[in-house]
């Protein structure tokens, strides 16, 4: 159990709010589509804060302009990986941006053990810090 005020991983745009319903997720997808973004579904069982590369559940859906279609992809992913973290990401290809424009978590494991902080004491009073995920002590696929 994580001890921050939400008791869970707080990455993404909406982790401090109650879980979004499918209708609420659809509204966010529609907002992104109206902006011209391409949606992508990604999942992982290694939510380390610096793990940029969650697994892609298929490629970004550049040509899918229908919010219900994106939600259907998400629900397929949820079926395949019910105990993983899943996030929706929107990519903006505008010159000068060309990066992620939105990202929020839409599926979580039942238990979120979180991370420990490993302190390596070095010379003087200096310290090297490592954020260590408890879950990744287990092999991939057996973590949650």
């Amino acid at each position: 159990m994580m001890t921050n005020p939400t008791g869970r991983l707080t990455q993404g745009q909406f982790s401090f709010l109650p879980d979004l319903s499918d209708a609420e997720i659809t509204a966010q997808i529609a907002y992104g589509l109206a902006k011209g973004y391409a949606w992508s579904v990604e999942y992982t069982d290694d939510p380390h804060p610096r793990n940029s590369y969650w697994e892609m559940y298929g490629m970004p859906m550049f040509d899918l302009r229908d919010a219900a279609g994106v939600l259907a992809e998400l629900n397929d992913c949820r079926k395949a990986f019910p105990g993983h973290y899943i996030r929706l990401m929107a990519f903006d290809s505008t010159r000068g941006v060309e990066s992620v424009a939105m990202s929020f978590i839409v599926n979580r494991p039942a238990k979120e053990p979180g991370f420990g902080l490993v302190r390596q004491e070095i010379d003087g009073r200096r310290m090297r810090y490592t954020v260590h995920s408890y879950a990744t002590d287990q092999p991939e696929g057996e973590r949650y």
Partner: protein
Amino acid sequence: MNATTPQESAQITDAKKRYSAGVLKYKQMGYWMPDYQPKDTDTICLFRITPQDGVDPEEAAAAVAGESSTATWTVVWTDRLTACDSYRAKAYRVEPVPGTPGQYFAWVAYDLILFEEGSIANMTASLIGNVFSFKPLKAARLEDMRIPVAYIKTFKGPPTGLVVERERLEKYGRPLLGATTKPKLGLSGRNYGRVIYEGLKGGLDFMKDDENINSQPFMHWRDRFLYVMDGVNKASAATGEVKGSYLNITGATMEDMYERAEFAKELGSIVVMVDLVIGWTAIQSMANWCRKNDMLMHMHRAGHGTYTRQKNHGVSFRVIAKWLRLAGCDHLHTGTAVGKLEGDPLTVQGYYNVCRDSYTKQDLPRGLFFDMDWADTKKVMPVASGGIHAGQMHQLLDLFGDDVILQFGGGTIGHPQGIQAGAVANRVALEAMVKARNEGKDIKVEGPEILKTAAKQCGPLKAALDTWGDISFNYASTDTSDYAVTPNAA
């Protein structure tokens, strides 16, 4: 002295007369050229000038052009050894400032050759050098400038830029949240780190040193860095998010600043901070260091109010923001419009545009006089800090959009239930407002209701709204755009 000759208002084209020893009017010397068509490679400055009584505005504009480029008080024959026509800045347009008797807008163009490549120090030594002390003017203000692509491309700009910053943080689609550690002065390193940990664990993305926290007797800088980084890393583990705290490396010398920056890097900080008062050369040096060390550079604009706030004299902050984007910083304090510090909302939005635009369009209500192509210069993340609280979230999101850091110092640390609760209140208010906006709600109108609804499921937000809900700072701004009846100010 030729002051009474009939030629006094016209440029003297006969070289022998032009360069005979003595004193000429600036207009006679060629600094006033009403027919001049600025080149794409020219830098164009818009000055607001207040000539002394009896000084002709065109002559005053010519004097500004002269004193900010080649002129001295008397004719010198050595001009004739040079291609002096191209070194002379050219005043080419003067208009009265609408509704402000005695003040004039003057447009002045500068050739590309006049400024050293990639040097804000060199450019500013001309543009705001002698000319601002020049006796025939009661006052002068650099209102705005168009920097040409040809000169922009000689600057490296922000070390990181807001797009890459978001990728490093893995935080997208919402403003970032921060808080300045309070009290500003007196906390020991250990006590200070406590505030950092609580704020970040509670839900903020960044904490911040204040501008005047360097290395005073109550807290040596190394102590601060060590305790702060323990708080940052503990909070990162507790939340699973990348967190940061702006470690202020401002010091007495460059050597001090490099030493502090290196220590911040060794401890794994993602960001360092400097104050504007360190000066342009030091800023560009620290930007180089940050670029080399994958470090975000936070800029606190300490001191700017001494020259940006009064409309008749100084340098507008929109110009300072342009210089800082070129000199290279990743975060820049640009005002809140609704908080405790000076700032008319439209004028403040103009500063935000300067930080974030790919191409700045002329926008007179926002004080932007020129179209300006930023030529793919990285973007600066604006920072809204000073007297803002969760109850204003709808206004802040509506005014500034997603690419901004909202800093609630008092609004986090002063929360009646503690620092973590303060952070929760701000984060919940922010996420609820972003979500509602994306769902198509008109947050300007429905904002207070959206906050109230979110507060039903969030005690800390309810307590924040109960404490600060009605607090606002409604004073008249001293720096507003005088655009109202300005004719087409191209």
